[in-house]
């Protein structure tokens, strides 16, 4: 029996006990603060030997080597460079203490640096750094490798890939989570699990993070999705100081009391992290002795992950949309951007699609003249930062697919693998190495299989080969092939029959590129929408589509309800429930309000798009511009101000209403007579953010509000020099000058500005505001204070009388 088989057997027999803390234990036994623990242990071998020995005596089945920080980056801080030798020696030391009594896990901790795309360490450089360490540990006789205390999923991936490229040694990966339930990098426990187990981790879990009570919810979150044993190594509570000494607040009994709960949550390897001692492990050993192995785990899972989100696939869940728009075909702007290495449109397409319901994003950068390998790598890195949606890697080049999968910090979907002889095995190997799911395209020869029978036969044949590489039905998504009904009337039915077979008999997920079905027909959206409804009823799991099409997405949502896949119509109600008027066709006004009332409502609602049309309707009904302003628009914006004052509205609502009002004024202005325009102006105001200050968003809000209330506003901008302001006052003769400043250092320029104006003998009132400005300060410099845009209108009105 190999060591690997022995470990798996032991895990099947009961809960294995790991060791406890090394760092705090070494400190307690005399390791001075500030030294490199690994190097100190080599010089003081008896100390680390005693730690190992005590954990063995306490009942540890597996002890960790003292090599947590023995990587190139951390050792270099202490002037050490022989990484392989240090790891090998410390591993041999642990092995000599453990003998036959326990297994030794070679410990790999984080480098302290962040790996691309989250940091400046290149991914391949990180892999090399971890390989250097792992090689030493394996050389030293490690039975297991453990990658622990990872806060960055990409660093954990780099370490795991490093190990897997060296050996199939049993490898544990544990991440550290914040009190928010996510790692510092934002990864949730399920996404970490899905990514790492698919990448080849033999056991996954948490260490450090918190005490046992804080860790149990993290483990519970992982349990339903775990295909590998779960691991927990919590701290002994939190560090506290008493009489000059630090201690952790949880003793052995309290700590071990959680053993049963951990085991019930699926934990099969348990130990302790910071603050735990041999006494904690002994107590844990006693509590776990009687525990039987946890309930059976699932063998595989249909799930895709990003660094921050997991999408679980299932025929009983709503249809998952793969957004198809990150593809340069037919998009000249995107082509240009990709050639120049810019990512602006990629981010825009990602955001637009996810906000409209895409849960996965397809990424295709194939076009003439582009370096597809480096471009797709760059796009994938960028999307890993800017979208939560898992990715589908779409390329005809295996090397582009591999480049993308290697650097993607999640479990991606390959689009696609067919029976094409020269690509099938290389792509299956790539998919396996990086733990990707893949779209199985039932194409084997030159001819497109037209009937469902032919497609089913090809699916079965390709899957047989995939099984040789360890894939299960859960790892694949069958593309049932969508062909144009304009060319073959039975095309859609053959696709649907294939879809049904996959869902009901074969047991795999399915995907369709739906829009092909309508090729060659007019008004294609209706064919596409009908087809998606039919495909959903046949069990389709995913669709590659443009989620920006409302018709398509709404029919999909309706189909999910009608097939019972949107339980309780929750998603449908979330989308439409609050709107009421969601029927197709032109929306009608919700009530029979008068035209003037409609203008009033437009401002109240901040409806910038409709206000011009509503004003036109009111004018056609004979309402004069002056009456519209005085009886509807001004009362509306005053009501908005009141709602803002009472906090019923918040800032975006206030501004949206102000912008609607402004647009209304602009639309109305050509209809007003000269005299009416003058009448509308209450006074002239110059606004400026004072010299030295560059924060002007607040001043811009004030300008908008004042204009809407009939003031003639001259906005001089930000960082305005005294001379510029003096010139403007001489030129415009304002009633009021409004000054803003955000910082204490620039606020003083308000006083100087006012003094300069007074010295120049210019007459006007002053109004000031800004984050650090107070009423008392304003009064001390001879100005009125306005706390916000609404208040500024009140102050200005009182100043002009």
């Amino acid at each position, binding site marked *: 029996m190999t060591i690997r088989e022995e470990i798996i057997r032991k895990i099947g027999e009961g809960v294995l006990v790991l060791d406890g803390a090394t*760092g*705090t234990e070494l400190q307690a036994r005399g390791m001075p603060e*500030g*030294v490199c623990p690994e190097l*100190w242990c080599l*010089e003081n071998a008896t100390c680390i030997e005693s730690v190992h020995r005590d954990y063995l005596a306490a009942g540890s089945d597996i002890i960790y080597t003292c090599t947590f*920080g023995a990587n190139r*980056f951390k050792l270099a*801080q*202490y*002037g050490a460079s022989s990484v392989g030798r240090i790891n090998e020696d410390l591993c041999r030391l642990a092995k000599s203490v453990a003998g036959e009594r326990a297994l030794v896990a070679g410990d790999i901790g984080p480098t302290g640096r962040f790996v691309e795309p989250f*940091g*400046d360490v290149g991914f391949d450089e990180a892999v090399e750094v971890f390989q250097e360490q792992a090689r030493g540990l394996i050389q030293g006789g490690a039975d297991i490798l453990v990658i622990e*205390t990872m806060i960055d999923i990409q660093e954990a991936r780099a370490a795991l890939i490093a190990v897997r490229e060296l050996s199939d040694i049993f490898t544990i990966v544990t991440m*550290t989570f914040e009190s928010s339930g*996510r790692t*510092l990098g934002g990864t949730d426990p399920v996404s970490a699990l899905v990514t790492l187990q698919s990448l080849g981790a033999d056991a996954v879990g948490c260490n*450090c993070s918190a005490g046992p009570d804080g860790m149990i919810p993290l483990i519970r979150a992982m349990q339903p999705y775990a295909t590998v044993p779960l691991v927990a190594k919590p*701290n002994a509570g939190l*560090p*506290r*100081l008493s009489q000059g000494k*630090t201690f952790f607040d949880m003793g052995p009994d309290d700590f071990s009391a959680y053993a049963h709960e951990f085991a019930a949550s699926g934990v099969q390897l348990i130990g302790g992290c*910071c*603050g735990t001692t041999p006494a904690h492990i002994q107590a844990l050993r006693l509590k776990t002795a009687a525990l039987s192995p946890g309930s059976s785990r699932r063998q595989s899972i249909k799930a895709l992950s990003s*660094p*921050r989100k997991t999408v679980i696939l299932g025929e009983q869940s709503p249809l998952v949309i793969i957004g198809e728009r990150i593809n340069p075909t037919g998009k000249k702007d995107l082509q240009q951007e990709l050639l120049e290495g810019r990512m*602006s449109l990629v*981010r*825009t397409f990602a*955001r637009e699609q*996810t*906000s409209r319901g895409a849960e996965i994003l397809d990424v295709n950068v194939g076009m003439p003249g582009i370096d597809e390998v480096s471009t797709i790598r760059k796009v994938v890195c960028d999307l890993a*930062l*800017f979208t939560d949606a898992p990715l589908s890697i779409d390329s005809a080049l295996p090397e582009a697919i591999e480049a993308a999968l290697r650097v993607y910090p999640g479990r991606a979907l390959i689009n696609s693998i067919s029976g094409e002889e020269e690509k099938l095995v290389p792509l299956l190997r790539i998919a396996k190495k990086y733990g990707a799911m893949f779209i199985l395209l039932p194409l084997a020869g030159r001819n497109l299989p037209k009937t469902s029978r032919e497609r089913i036969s090809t699916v079965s044949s390709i899957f047989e080969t995939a099984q040789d590489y360890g894939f299960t039905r859960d790892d694949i998504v069958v593309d049932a092939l969508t062909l144009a009904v304009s060319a073959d009337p039975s095309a859609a039915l053959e696709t649907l029959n294939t879809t049904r077979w996959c869902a009901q008999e074969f047991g795999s997920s399915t995907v369709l590129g739906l829009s092909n079905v309508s090729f060659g027909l007019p008004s294609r959206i209706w064919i596409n929408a009908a087809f998606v409804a039919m495909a959903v009823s046949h069990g389709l799991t995913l669709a590659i589509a443009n989620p920006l099409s409302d018709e398509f997405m709404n029919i999909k949502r309706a189909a999910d309800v009608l097939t019972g896949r949107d339980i309780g119509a929750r998603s449908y109600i979330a989308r439409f429930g609050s*709107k009421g008027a969601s029927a197709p066709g032109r929306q009608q006004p919700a009530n029979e309000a008068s035209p003037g009332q409609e203008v009033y409502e437009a401002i109240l609602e*901040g409806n910038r798009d409709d206000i011009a049309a509503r004003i036109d309707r009111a004018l056609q009904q004979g309402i004069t511009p002056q009456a519209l302003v005085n009886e509807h628009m001004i009362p509306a914006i005053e009501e908005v101000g009141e709602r*803002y004052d009472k*906090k*019923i*509205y*918040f*800032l*975006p*609502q206030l501004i*949206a209403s102000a*912008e609607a009002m*402004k647009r209304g004024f602009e639309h109305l202005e050509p209809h007003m007579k000269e005299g009416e325009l003058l009448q509308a102006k209450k006074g002239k105001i110059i606004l400026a953010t004072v010299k*030295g*200050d*560059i*924060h*002007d*968003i607040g001043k*811009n*809000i004030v300008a*908008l509000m004042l204009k809407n209330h009939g003031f003639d506003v001259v906005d001089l901008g930000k960082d305005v020099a005294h001379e510029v302001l003096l010139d403007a006052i001489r030129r415009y003769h304002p009633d009021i000058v409004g000054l803003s400043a955000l*910082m*204490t*250092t620039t606020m003083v320029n308000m006083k100087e500005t006012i003094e300069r104006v007074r010295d120049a003998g210019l007459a006007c009132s002053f109004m000031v505001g800004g984050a650090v400005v107070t009423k008392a300060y304003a009064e001390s410099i001879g100005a009125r204070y306005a706390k916000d845009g609404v208040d500024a209108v009140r102050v200005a009105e009182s100043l002009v009388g």
Partner: protein
Amino acid sequence: MKLFRIPSRSLGMIDAGAPVFFRTIAVAVPRKEIYARLGFRAGHTLIQPEHREMVESYIDEARGFVELKGSAILLNVARIEEDSIVLSGGDMFVSSQLARMASGCSSLLLMGATAGSRIMEEIRRDTSIGHITRGVVLDAAASEMTDGALDWIMGYVNQDLRRRAKRLTRRRYSAGYGDFALENQRVIYELLRLGEIGVSITGEYLLIPEKSVTAIAGVRTSVA
């Protein structure tokens, strides 16, 4: 033969005597904080679905423009007096409130973060074309995400400190607040070498891009 030397200070990567730079900081979008900054009061503010959709889409857009970077350094404290802190390197911060926060701390964490210039260009563009609603939401999102980057830096450092039974004070303090004068920003800026992540400082001690922030936290050996 000695295998190694013991450095005078060694609190891991963050304490190598020079600032550690974080070229990419990925934080979850702090939606609750962004809404709060915009004046949203749960249970009080009535927001129409269209407005929520609008605000959400602007926040999502902000995420595409904000490029968080940061820098941090741990510095030993020589002494803390009633109204000042003197660092081992000789720099001094005068502030009784900061001194109170750092009471009992043997070192300080100085940190800085920036949202970068792209988001500021976008806000300026919005303002110039009169699309202030979007500008206001982008502004609030950038502020809160930059603040989130400081939370992230503190989390990162705490991970390292935890293994030595230490932790940061829960609170942090920024120049320009209370009696900690904004003028201190210059020293903090230089210690953090923020110029290396594209941040500059004006004669009035303002950081550019505008959505850049610095702060100080203390290192405690007990739970605050």
